[in-house]
């Protein structure tokens, strides 16, 4: 069966919670477990038999890094991958509606839609099989997961859909991964028509509202629920959102765990003359790591990174070109591109993991401030930040190109 996949990558106005890291590169290219966030999606799509093409869709301007990534991903996965640029932010439904001909070209009988800012095992094949078992060739499938460990509802067709309800509706949450047939465009089209009529009626419309802006979740699923068209396939596999920079460390952990099965070659091993590895660690082959350094668990070391003698890194992402001098201790931190940490400095954040005692717990969509105070979070160093020797940087966010001269705690440093 010819299949396609659409990965919704958003645009520069989105992902502000990912600042200051999204200043430097589109968030979907941010490395999670050593590879661009969206590469995990592409890899999962490329594995599905019958996959003809993968379309990245968003409203980023043509971007050198994005183009380069597409070229290398096409070579690696041997599948056509294109970027479709929306002329404006069209919402999760408006974009695919606008590009419906591109999606269906080549006779695609079904297609996946994946949000770029989730991390998952992507059980795409299982979603296809689930749909076949249901026997309805025209049904749509949402990947769902439960908020907690309870078995919950057994029914699998969607009776009711509410986006971000403020009261309890269901244990099942939408994972942002869908399987559609071309028939979905009729339903989106209905919303489009209705929007247009409403806009005509509403003379006072200020021109910002467009009929083309359609949200799959609120506008389409809500209407489809209860009509026996929309099914949910519940997964027990890992899943998390990657909204804030802090959740990138959590997502990295989930992917690194998966590597032990899917990509053992990407996980660093303890070798004579090499650094001490604890748990799952990714080290880019070009990184230079002193043999007395201790890394892990859940550490990703990027391209060209230098790690000095006696350095300790745990639960962190070190981006390309960064340099960690001797005896530094880096915990729960994202170290930005080309940043430097002086010797004996301690750079530490507070993990924003979901409750570790609940295997089904999901990461909160954190707010930066609570009661007017910066909530303790992971520490983020923007690109080209310089941390002097012997200081402590705790629960802080340092904006790019900043040279610090002292210790900071619980601060955003502009």
């Amino acid at each position, binding site marked *: 069966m010819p299949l396609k996949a659409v990965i919704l990558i958003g645009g520069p106005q989105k992902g502000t919670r990912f600042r200051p890291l999204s200043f430097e590169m589109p968030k979907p290219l941010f490395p999670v477990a050593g590879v661009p966030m969206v590469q995990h999606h592409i890899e999962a799509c490329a594995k599905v038999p019958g996959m003809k093409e993968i379309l990245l869709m968003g409203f980023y301007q043509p971007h050198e890094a994005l183009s380069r990534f597409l070229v290398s991903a096409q070579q690696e996965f041997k599948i056509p991958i294109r970027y479709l640029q929306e002329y404006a932010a069209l919402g999760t439904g408006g974009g695919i509606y606008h590009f419906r001909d591109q999606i269906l070209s080549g006779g695609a009988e079904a297609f996946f839609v994946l949000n770029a800012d989730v991390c998952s095992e992507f059980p795409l094949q299982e979603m296809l099989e689930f749909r076949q078992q249901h026997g309805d060739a025209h049904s749509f499938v949402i990947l769902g997961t439960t908020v907690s460990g309870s078995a919950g509802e057994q029914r699998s067709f969607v009776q009711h859909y509410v986006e971000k309800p403020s009261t309890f509706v269901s244990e099942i949450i939408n994972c942002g991964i869908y399987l559609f047939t071309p028939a979905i465009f009729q339903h989106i089209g209905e919303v489009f028509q209705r929007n247009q009529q409403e806009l005509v009626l509403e003379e006072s419309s200020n021109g910002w509202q467009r009929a083309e802006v359609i949200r799959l979740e609120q506008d389409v699923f809500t209407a489809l629920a209860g009509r026996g068209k929309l099914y949910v396939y519940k997964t027990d596999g890992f899943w998390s959102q990657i909204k804030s920079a802090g959740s990138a460390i959590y997502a990295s952990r989930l992917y690194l765990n998966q590597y032990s099965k899917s990509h053992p070659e990407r996980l660093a091993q303890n070798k004579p003359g090499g650094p001490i590895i604890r748990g799952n660690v990714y080290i880019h082959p070009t990184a230079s790591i002193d043999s*007395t350094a*201790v890394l892990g668990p859940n550490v990703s070391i990027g391209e060209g990174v230098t790690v000095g*003698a*006696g*350095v*300790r890194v*745990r639960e962190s992402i070190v981006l390309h070109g960064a340099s960690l001098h*001797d*005896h530094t*201790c880096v*915990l729960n931190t994202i170290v930005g591109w080309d940043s430097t940490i002086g010797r*004996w400095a*301690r750079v*530490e954040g507070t993990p924003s993991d979901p409750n570790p005692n609940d295997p089904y717990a999901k990461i909160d969509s954190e707010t930066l401030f609570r009661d007017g105070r910066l909530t303790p979070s992971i520490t983020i160093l923007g690109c080209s930040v310089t941390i002097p020797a*012997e200081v*402590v940087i*705790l629960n802080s966010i340092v904006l790019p190109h900043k040279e610090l001269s002292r210790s900071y*705690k619980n601060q955003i440093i502009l």
Partner: protein
Amino acid sequence: MRALILVGGFGTRLRPLTLSRPKPLVQFCNKAVLLHQLEALLQAGVTHVVLAVSYMSEALGAAMREQEQRLGIRISLSHEKEPLGTAGPLALARDLLAEDGEPFFVLNSDVICEFPFAALAQFHRHHGGEGSLVVTRVEEPAKYGVVVSEPDTGRICRFVEKPRVFVSNKINAGLYIFSPGILQRIQLRPTSIEKEIFPAMAQEGQLYAMELQGFWMDIGQPKDFLTGMCMYLQALRAQHPEKLHSGPGVVGNVLVDPSAKIGANCVIGPNVTIGAGVVVEDGVRIKRCTVLEGARIRSHSWLESCIVGWSCSVGQWVRMENVTVLGEDVIVNDELYLNGANVLPHKSISESVPEPRIIM
């Protein structure tokens, strides 16, 4: 000559160190505080020292007997059943102090300086008054009680508590010499020598002040203990530089017991004291700290302004700062951050302490 050291109570201000041993036995710059005082008194010709204590301690008794042997002086305990203040203990030890009819020294046990006992005795004999006290200059006299004395003779005119306008910058350093006549003034009851006895003596023109040369510090609390250490090591640099440690990775004034081991690629100092049997592993950075006997500092840790208690173990990549004090036998797990933590003895720490607090 004889001397009375006002040891007093449990030394609560220096907890958690004083939960493990009496304050006079806590090592300051690798030597028990009491020993600094005993050795200085011995040099000034003192042959009998009385310790005024308000609690009993076997450890103190044993240490006293050991020092009696070593220094060849007599050490007695004068035990208060109830706290007698700073003057009452003189009355309690009256017989011991007055026995030889000579002037005797009295000192607070928290004071560290270059003890000028011989000069003080000479000063006292020279002016012939009933008492002499050592005064030291301070930068901010408004925080203290100051001593106003005649510039030429040193005769004390009056005491002013926390002066609001400048009258003097000299404060009582807690070191005295008295003629036995002072004992007539003191009853066996709780009495403050500073507030009740001295003003009367000053009024009668019987009290003189001698200015201290060099550093002075009351090391009764951890913060001042560390400041006092810095001063002491600086004085050691001037007088006995050979006692200080030198070598690669040593910065400024560092005192290391010969039995301590320091690993490779460490940077130690300035102002660090490393006690007997201490092990500092590779790649450790220590500044402005006292590490007491038998402690182990594991690799790549960073310590500033801390007192590490006896037999403690500080894990790898630990950062401790801001007057963190570890009581005896505390274990700090790897990779933790302790900021101003006060940790009671025999505790194992497995979580960071990002803001100053007491760990019971």
